[in-house]
């Protein structure tokens, strides 16, 4: 270790791995994937994997990806929900890995909700 910059580099590289080990959710955006039988059958697992991979790749320390059970609208699976602090929950339906990656880049990173994938778009 020859400089503080080296230490900082290790810290940044590791931040993501230890970031989730705390209980305060105030700054964390949660992405929840419906992983009940219906979700898994409709292809939720590749979606989940794509989300996890993308969050890791982009080093998004304040984002956690979690699973949940059946959200109740099995025909719209795979469903994911984005819960950002202080904002309304956004529900995306009929997800694919490609759509999931777009949600990360557009919604999570740039703050633009992908209206075309939301449940509202489907019902209109």
């Amino acid at each position: 270790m020859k400089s503080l910059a080296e230490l900082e580099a290790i810290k940044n590289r590791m931040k993501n791995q230890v970031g989730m080990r705390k209980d305060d959710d105030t700054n964390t955006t949660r992405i929840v994937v419906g992983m009940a039988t219906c979700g898994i059958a409709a292809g939720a697992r590749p979606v989940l994997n794509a989300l996890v991979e993308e969050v890791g790749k982009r080093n998004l320390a304040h984002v956690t990806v979690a699973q949940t059970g059946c959200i109740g609208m099995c025909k719209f699976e795979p469903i994911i929900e984005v819960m950002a602090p202080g904002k309304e929950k956004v529900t995306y339906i009929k997800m694919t890995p490609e759509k999931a990656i777009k949600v990360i880049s557009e919604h999570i990173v740039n703050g633009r909700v992908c209206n075309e994938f939301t449940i509202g778009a489907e019902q209109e």
Partner: protein
Amino acid sequence: MDFARSTVLVCGGTGCTSSGCQKVMKEFEAQLAAKGLEKEVKMVQTGCFGLCALGPVVIVYPEGAFYSMVKPEDVEEIVSEHLLKGRVVTRLLYDETVQDDTVKSLNETNFYKKQMRIALRNCGVIDPENIDEYIALDGYKALGKVLTEMKPEEVIDVIKASGLRGRGGGGFPTGIKWMLAAKSPNVIGKYVCCNADEGDPGAFMDRSVLEGDPHAVIEAMAIAAYAINAEQGYIYIRAEYPIAVKRLQIAIDQAREYGLLGKNIFGTDFSFDLGIRLGAGAFVCGEETALMTSIEGMRGEPRPRPPFPAVKGLWEKPTLLNNVETYANIPQIILNGAEWFTSIGTEKSAGTKVFALGGKINNTGLVEVPMGTTLREIVEEIGGGIPNGKKFKAAQTGGPSGGCIPASLLDVAIDYDSLIQIGSMMGSGGLIVMDEDNCMVDIAKFFLEFTVDESCGKCTPCRIGTKRMLEILERITQGKGTLEDLDKLEELAYNIKESALCGLGQTAPNPILSTLRYFRDEYEAHVIDKKCPAGVCKALVSYSIVADKCKGCSLCARQCPVNAISGEIKSPFVIDQDKCIKCGACIEKCKFDAIIVQ
């Protein structure tokens, strides 16, 4: 693996190791592999979470689900339900975290609510065998700051201003100790040592810090070395702590590999290296001069002070010696400032203290609370009270050097000075809770037996004096004591306190003095009425069968190891007092509560 969606933390402290966490860990790995989840879920073995009574303990993040008493059979359910399908297995959660079927944060439970973790901040959070995880949570940042931005005198000033006092028990101001060691000229070497020879029965704070966060101690020792201008350090740890020794060695190796120990750390002129020295487990080696004698390779015996270690210590060189928990506070003080630290705790005792809760208490484990927390809060709220609806009688703090605090003083705010005032001491942090079934004379005898055993024999007051005190206590517990014995005991205790060579001898009478002070009636019951009120001292109790309640089932007679019970079936049995060895085996078997102890 770069990023995992879930992290499973399994406690790998000594407490959970003995309740089987290794098997649980292996089962997790097997189940995750079977379900193809090993790339998504990260397994981490951490240090102690604190709730040792509920081990093995597993936490799954990001949900923060706290699973307690996890058996290998339960793992499959956790993996397939929680990790695969995202449904928390409520059945296995720590009861208190489940409320109306939702998972409550662990920090809201009674056990954690009043705690504040500084020394233990990384215990149960990081993988102690991975230096990167320590760095991720600001590890070695304090060392970097000290080496690149601060002069040694400035470091000492911060520690002095923080009001940190030695956590090993004495409570000597750490900053002053550093200043004295810094003032001693460095002719041919100075040393920084760490006292990890935790010897109090029932205490395991230092072990848990070293098992859960070894790098914090290494970083702090490097900071101390910079402050006093030393280049070599030693950690003296007992060989009975194999997990701590192993993790410490791994941590030292990793720090060396990263250049955080060794030559020219952070590109500065500062060089520092560390070695581990194993102790054989003698209590006296926790005393600073005996500890250094032992590191030198000689028999661990104390020597008179002065000269103090800061002037003439290890190999007659100026030496700075601090306890594990004291060191664990240092990096946080450097990073957050002295003012932050003084804002926690009481005026004269800043910061927090770690206690090892044991004895008759529901939540056996490790707790860290701000100084000034009352004993009642620790016992009743954090500790969850006394099991089986029994009544609190006393708490013993400070191990064999401390004293017993009676129920009437439950509301005393715990800090260094208040504990000394009531005749006990902080000690290293052992806190043993006793209920109405404990005999205080017997407790004093237990601790005296320990000090008699552990006395090194160098000075007469301790070698002979403690033995004489123990003999008097034995007489009392056998019903052969007199009232003069109590006076003699007290006189002897004060004499030893004043004349013994080292801390071990000087504090050895404390358990007797404090029990005499608060529980004199129990001593008198033993001496005058020849009775042991708690029914513990065997010579003073007798077992008998209440004829009205006895159904004559003969269960007790068959259980008795010395055939002291006889009688006809279906008529009351009797115990032959001459034969009875008072083992209590009969009382456990009787279904009709017909056997009583008097």
